[in-house]
């Protein structure tokens, strides 16, 4: 599936601007972005519910831009589930099959298969309002899958579920995609969700794709300050390249101090270095630790999250940094206290140099 320079405008508002993207067969692709970035519009254009203002959308090399939704081999699961309230669960799932003129016995078999697939056997006779939120979500999924579409579109499929259910559903979705061998395109604003389920993620911002890559690539090699900031927690240090060569770069921080990162860059360029909090090392000054890329500072806040603790450190040069430590042992007291003098350090490989 391919988007070619697709734009969508609503009056003066540009929802999607000159966007090009390839989605491969049997891929689990996630469109991630803040609300209003155009990700749902993109999905609706795939479904045919919106027409692109400019550009082409190709499926197997055929332009489907003008094809109405009911003639596309693409099915969508709606955020509100959009179950037909006046029809039973069975009739909801059978709805799409009936439109294709499938013979009745086959429809019945398929509906039974789908109910089994989403673990709702025995619920066929119920009406949507007699189901819980999670069950409704499964019916919506079964209905969208019943026609065996080439591509399944999922619009924020788990936004109405509670946390526990959401986590289970993620893995079920991945399993489904594996067993059915379909292309899934999911729209979400939940990065954890996108990272878990997707093979590749397209991060959208203001109608454009900011980065398209695998989850680990996006996390470890963000291509801009915006991506680094949007995905996960980040410490950004603004600076200037002092010298570079042989795979190493010395960066002069704007706020004072020099440090080394494992990358090459043009000398004199204004850059930002992105450091994930879990890649920072935190030692008490008293421990006497030394080594490269060390900055002295003072702990200002500690957030205990159970598995990890987040330390907020005000460096002596005025920067606020975040570092996380895994709580390996059962602690009765934190090893580092608020107000304590600490030394933050990181390996040269931990920093990512961002030009944009």
């Amino acid at each position: 599936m391919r988007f070619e320079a697709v734009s969508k405008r609503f009056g003066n508002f540009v929802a999607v601007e000159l966007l090009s993207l390839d989605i491969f067969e049997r891929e689990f692709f996630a469109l991630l972005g803040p609300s209003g970035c155009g990700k749902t519009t993109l999905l609706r254009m795939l479904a045919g519910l919106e027409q692109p203002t400019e550009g082409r959308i190709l499926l197997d090399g055929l332009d489907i831009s003008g094809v109405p939704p009911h003639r596309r081999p693409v099915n969508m699961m709606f955020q509100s589930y959009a179950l037909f309230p006046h029809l039973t669960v069975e009739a909801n799932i059978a709805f799409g099959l009936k439109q294709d003129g499938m013979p009745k016995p086959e429809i019945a078999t398929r509906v039974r298969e789908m109910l089994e697939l989403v673990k709702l056997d025995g619920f066929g006779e119920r009406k949507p309002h007699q189901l819980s939120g999670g069950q409704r979500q499964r019916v919506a999924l079964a209905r969208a899958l019943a026609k065996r579409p080439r591509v399944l579109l999922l619009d924020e499929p788990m936004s109405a579920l509670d946390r526990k259910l959401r986590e289970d559903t993620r893995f079920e979705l991945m399993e489904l995609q594996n067993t059915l061998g379909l292309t899934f395109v999911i729209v979400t604003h939940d990065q954890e969700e996108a990272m878990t389920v997707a093979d590749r993620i397209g991060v959208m911002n203001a109608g454009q794709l900011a980065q398209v890559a695998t989850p680990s690539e996006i996390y470890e090699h963000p291509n801009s300050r915006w991506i680094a900031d949007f995905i996960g927690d980040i410490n950004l240090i603004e600076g200037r390249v002092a010298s570079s060569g042989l795979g190493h770069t010395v960066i002069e921080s704007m706020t004072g101090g020099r440090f080394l990162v494992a990358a090459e860059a043009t000398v004199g360029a204004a850059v930002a270095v992105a450091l994930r909090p879990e890649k920072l090392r935190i030692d008490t000054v008293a421990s006497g630790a030394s080594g490269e890329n060390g900055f002295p500072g003072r702990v200002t806040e500690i957030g205990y999250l159970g598995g990890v603790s987040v330390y907020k450190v005000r460096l002596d040069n005025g920067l606020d940094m975040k570092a996380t430590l895994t709580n390996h042992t059962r602690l009765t007291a934190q090893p580092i206290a608020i107000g304590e003098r600490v030394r933050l350090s990181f390996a040269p490989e931990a920093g990512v140099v961002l030009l944009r």
Partner: protein
Amino acid sequence: MRKGPSIFNVTLVALGLAFLYLPIAILVIYSFNASRLVTIWGGWSTRWYVALWHDSAMLDAAWTSLRIAALSATAACVIGTLAAVVLVRAGRFRGRTMFSGMVYAPLVMPEVITGLSLLLLFVALDVGRGFWTVTIAHTTVTMSFVTVVVQSRLLSFDCSLEEAAMDLGCPPLKTFLTITLPLIFPAVAAGWMLAFTLSFDDLVIASFSTGPGATTLPMRIYSEVRLGVKPEINAICTIMIAVVALGVIAAALVGKRREWVGRT
């Protein structure tokens, strides 16, 4: 917190209800009056209902009214629903504001003016006035009521239901018939009931647009009353009240059930 309503509140409610229903109650009671004189109580009797049964002119008028009401309500439902769908769904086409304003206009237009304009139209077109002209006139007036009722239902209608149907391979017209229409049916039915009652009790517009041979029940009653109130009139009015009340109760019950089912 006080448990029950105060005497003051009870009195107000009682006064309000009396103001609304006392005239009707009197009419119903006098319809069972044995005396020929309308204002003098002569004991309980159902003789006026029996007399009504033999009053063929009155029965004819009632039959005409029922047919006109049913036909015009049905036509008003079809046109009114279509108008509502267009006004809600067609987006911002040129003149949308003007059209929605024009749909509401008959609601506030004095009936005399509507009636007169229809009469002028029928005369200009040289149509023989009678049953069909009244039906058309009533359709014209009542369709805007249907539009208003259906429009409000459509505004709260989740468009993704229609999108889902189309996404599953259902063409637009079939989507409207299999998904949208069943779901807005309570509103359409309520619109039908409203149109039916409006047509059934209309006197002014019917008087303007009718011709010889098509006398509606309100017209018949009005002309009889001008010669003095007969007890049969009380009887037929009581029957009308009963029919309307049953209709309203039925519509309310259906609406309530549907609404519950429709909630997801």
